[in-house]
């Protein structure tokens, strides 16, 4: 069922947009002959956008599932590590100092650097401990610091238009993303997924607490390093390209969990798939909902996600 949803989301994501292109013409445009304008729309505009939506959504869903399992907290979501704020700060710096205008790759590159810097700070802060709780605290500190940096940029922005540019970037969007963005984000996302894969059993063991997990052969220190790296690089790469897209990482694991045996390992890949489908569908919604300014993706995921989330919680009659 998840697979079907994913397929539908992917097809809609390529097929729907402000220009209507019938299926037959779309296929012929994709495979060589056909109208060059339609081909350009499909390949240059919609395809990268669809790929990014799927990849970023998968990363956010997976990260949320991993973090909830690792921190053993149903409220955890990728932004608690502070690296998404770090990435946002990097991107905001690019906008603030006008570096973004020098080259289109500057903004995501600075975003990724921001994520890595905040990861280094996080690792320095949690160097001496093995516990997951210290990560939450250090993550909040890093996130708050980066958040303060963003506020500072808004505070000092020379004119309302600059502030507007920063704010609207922060809302998160996949508008006008090209294959250049895809090539920047994909390596980060792939590395993130690679590092997070194969941690399911260790996460399961952690559901009995850290001592029990260690006694079952889990190397807590190595596991933490691996998860932190994977999450920061992956989420940082995603935020650097799309801006902050909230709620996907928080909600998706909760939506998926009732259909599994509720162990942390069982929700990892379903969360990735559901995250991809959800974000791609939200991006389709962005395009079809009529509005004067195009709606921002982060806004739509929040409006779409929260009611679904609440309905789901009420139906489950428990908070996790």
């Amino acid at each position, binding site marked *: 069922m998840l697979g079907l949803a994913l397929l539908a989301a992917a097809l809609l994501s390529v097929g729907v947009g402000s220009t209507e292109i019938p299926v037959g013409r779309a296929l012929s445009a994709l495979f060589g002959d056909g109208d060059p304008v339609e081909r350009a729309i499909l390949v240059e505009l919609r395809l990268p956008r669809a790929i990014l939506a799927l990849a970023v959504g998968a990363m956010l869903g997976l990260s949320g599932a991993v973090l909830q*399992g690792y921190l*053993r907290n149903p409220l955890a979501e990728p932004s608690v590590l502070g690296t998404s704020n770090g990435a946002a700060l990097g991107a905001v710096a690019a906008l603030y100092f006008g570096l973004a205008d020098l080259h289109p790759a500057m903004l995501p590159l600075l975003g990724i650097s921001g994520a890595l810097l905040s990861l280094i700070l996080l690792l320095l802060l949690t160097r001496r401990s093995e516990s997951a709780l210290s990560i939450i605290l250090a993550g909040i500190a890093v996130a708050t610091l980066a958040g303060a940096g963003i506020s500072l940029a808004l505070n000092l922005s020379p004119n309302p238009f600059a502030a507007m540019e920063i704010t609207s970037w922060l809302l998160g969007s996949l508008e006008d993303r090209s294959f250049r963005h895809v090539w920047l984000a994909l390596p980060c996302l792939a590395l993130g997924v690679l590092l997070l894969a*194969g941690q399911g*059993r260790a996460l*399961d*063991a*952690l*559901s*009995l*607490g850290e*001592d*029990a997990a*260690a*006694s*079952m*052969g*889990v*190397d807590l220190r190595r596991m933490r390093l691996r998860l932190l790296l994977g999450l920061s690089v992956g989420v940082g790469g995603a935020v650097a390209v799309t801006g902050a897209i909230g709620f996907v990482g928080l909600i998706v694991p909760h939506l998926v969990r009732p259909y599994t*045996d*509720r*162990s*942390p390992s069982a929700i990892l890949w379903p969360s990735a798939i559901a995250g991809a489908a959800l974000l791609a569908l939200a991006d389709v919604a962005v395009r079809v909902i009529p509005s004067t300014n195009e709606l921002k993706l982060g806004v739509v995921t929040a409006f779409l996600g929260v009611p679904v989330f609440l309905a789901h919680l009420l139906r489950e009659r428990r908070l*996790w």
Partner: protein
Amino acid sequence: MVSLATENLGVRLGGREVLGGLSTQLPAGLLVGVLGPNGAGKSSFLKALAGLLPHAGRVLLDGAPLAHMPRAEVARRIAYLPQGQTLHWPLAVERLVGLGRLPHLAPLSRIADSDRAAIERAMRRTDVAHLAQRTATELSGGERARVLLARALAVEAPVLLADEPLTSLDPAHQIEGMEILRDEARAGALVVAVMHDLALAYRYCDRILLLDRGRLVAEGPAGDVLTPGNLAEVYAISAFYGPPAERLLVPLDRLR
């Protein structure tokens, strides 16, 4: 046959010495009770035996220092049941007990028939087989304690370290718990259990380690360790003793 030994074992937590100069030899086939007042260092001792705490001195598993052994190997040879019934997700009982097989699973392999048999054995031993499909977080405290004990038994390791496995069990299940631990020892395992119940320890344990303020006060058969003198010194209590053949001890009054 498995054996655990400590040489001059010391543990510091938060700059304070919680355990010091502890040397002992624990051979297979024994049910060892670790007793002592709150804060005596019992749990730290057990964690150090499991290789979970940085320590001074040495812990030897079959003569080899535990500190140099790969984590995965220790996990297959020492099962550890922590204090406090921690369980963070609402897993089904069978799934939870199955976590005990994690040390035996190779990466990417699926759970095998032998694992499933071990899970079933462990659930039968602790009398939780009928709860297999229930959600563990919705069980009573006693049921949950038995399920978590089953998780530790499912490891089927030659050493079982249990930190207060009997808390929140009713008398019948407490006695059953002691019987399970004793049977494990009879079957050739080394079982070390932190306990508070003097009567059960006196009755069931083959050997008692009595700790007080981080030191090993006395060690030996229950009759030699839980003497009126030691109880007065360590717990400041008196006790009633039944006839020697009955192995009966009832704590009575506070001294002073």
